[in-house]
């Protein structure tokens, strides 16, 4: 069977009782958590929605996005998931809580890449207690019946809901990615951590030396006269590394014709490299 198309849903209908402030509007480095989460999620899914309570219909922050309002009031996160699966029953849903300031694109990409559409859901195992994390997870259309049953039985805990589903459980690649923020103190700590990360110099800014692995393929392998090497370099990005290798190894290809891969995935020419990375410069391909 083909996998149902994936839509995204950001849950923002919570009452934020412990925080006593709307978690969606919390500010991190000048941007609301609502905007940050939607920026992360939107490029990864076919369509993206904000899940709201019916009394939030006219909230200007939320109204900037496509919204899905809860059908039954006060059911918590399950109510939002239920409304989404009810409105678009043929779609799978990537569900995200609105209190995950450390969530990164790589974590969401990992979830999507390892999605098991033949099961009811795909979720991460919590790095703190090993249980499935329901609020950064993919729910397939076939999970709808279980959710409706849970609601009929007055069951509102998303964790116990997930434990009743047939779930594909994944290891979290970044153990902090799903740390959530429930209190004022946690918010202050998260703000400080994110500000420090933003202010920190790029890994090799200080003129440090990186040990990198380079692999060569096809025409570049022939020009370099080797298929791999380990080197120490002051280059801090793939762009700088390629300039250095062009001189050192006599490579003739202009970088605008190449793509770069870092650690077996397509990468960005300007993204900082880290010690131990494996870099591959990809000449124009010609398969088939």
């Amino acid at each position, binding site marked *: 069977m*083909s*996998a149902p198309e994936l839509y995204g849903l950001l849950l923002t209908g919570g009452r934020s009782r412990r925080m006593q402030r709307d978690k969606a509007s919390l500010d991190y480095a000048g941007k609301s958590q609502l905007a940050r989460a939607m920026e992360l999620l939107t490029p990864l899914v076919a369509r993206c929605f904000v899940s709201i309570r019916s009394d939030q219909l006219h909230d200007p922050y939320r109204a900037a996005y496509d919204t899905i309002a809860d059908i039954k009031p006060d059911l918590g996160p399950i109510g939002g998931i239920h409304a989404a699966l009810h409105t678009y029953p043929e779609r799978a849903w990537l569900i995200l809580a609105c209190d995950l300031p450390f969530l990164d694109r790589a974590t969401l990409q990992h979830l999507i890449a390892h999605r098991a559409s033949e099961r009811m859901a795909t979720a991460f195992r919590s790095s703190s207690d090993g249980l499935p994390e329901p609020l950064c997870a993919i729910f397939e259309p076939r999970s709808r019946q279980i959710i409706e049953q849970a609601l009929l039985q007055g069951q509102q805990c998303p964790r116990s809901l997930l434990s009743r589903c047939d779930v594909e459980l994944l290891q979290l690649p970044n153990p902090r990615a799903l740390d959530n923020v429930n209190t004022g103190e946690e918010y202050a700590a998260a703000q400080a951590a994110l500000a420090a990360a933003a202010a920190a110099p790029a890994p090799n800014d200080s003129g440090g030396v990186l040990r990198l692995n380079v692999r060569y393929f*096809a025409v570049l392998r022939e020009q370099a006269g080797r298929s791999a090497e380990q080197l120490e370099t002051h280059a801090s990005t793939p762009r700088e590394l390629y300039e250095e290798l062009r*001189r050192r190894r006599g490579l003739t*290809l202009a970088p605008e014709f190449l793509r770069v*891969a870092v650690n077996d995935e*397509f990468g960005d020419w300007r993204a900082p490299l880290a010690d131990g990375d494996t870099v591959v410069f990809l000449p124009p*391909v*010609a*398969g088939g």
Partner: protein
Amino acid sequence: MNRFSLHDTLLQPELLRAELQDPTCGGYAAFEGWVRDHNDGRTVLRLEYEAFGPLAVREGERILTEARQRFGVARARCAHRVGPLAIGDLAVWVAVSAAHRGEAFDACRYIIDEVKHRVPIWKKEYYLDGDSGWVNCERCAVAPSQPHRAHGSGQGRA
């Protein structure tokens, strides 16, 4: 089901085909890419494929997943050769099974087109005149007429 694989031995379509069988499917479409004896007006004697294995498989499987989602086909499979190949050899094999023929044809076409453009596999052709070349790479050099330092950033060089 979707799977992309690389092979350094002959592809066996009759074995691969069995993976596409599905009771929900009434349509099956396959494409075979063969090694041709000429390219760009030159006589080709043989060729070699080289792949960046881990990323080739990953990108290939992304393409198959896209094809299944876009066209709603049930199963999609692609197998690609690496290593030396002779004229007439089967270089790439794509197949799709679906409820109906229309989406099977469309998905099959989509997969082979995307594979050619996105999967890190390279082809070296050996010509009758003794020359050889990497396809799509021959015009990618920095223009030789320009002095090399024109591209440098003014740093000293080793």
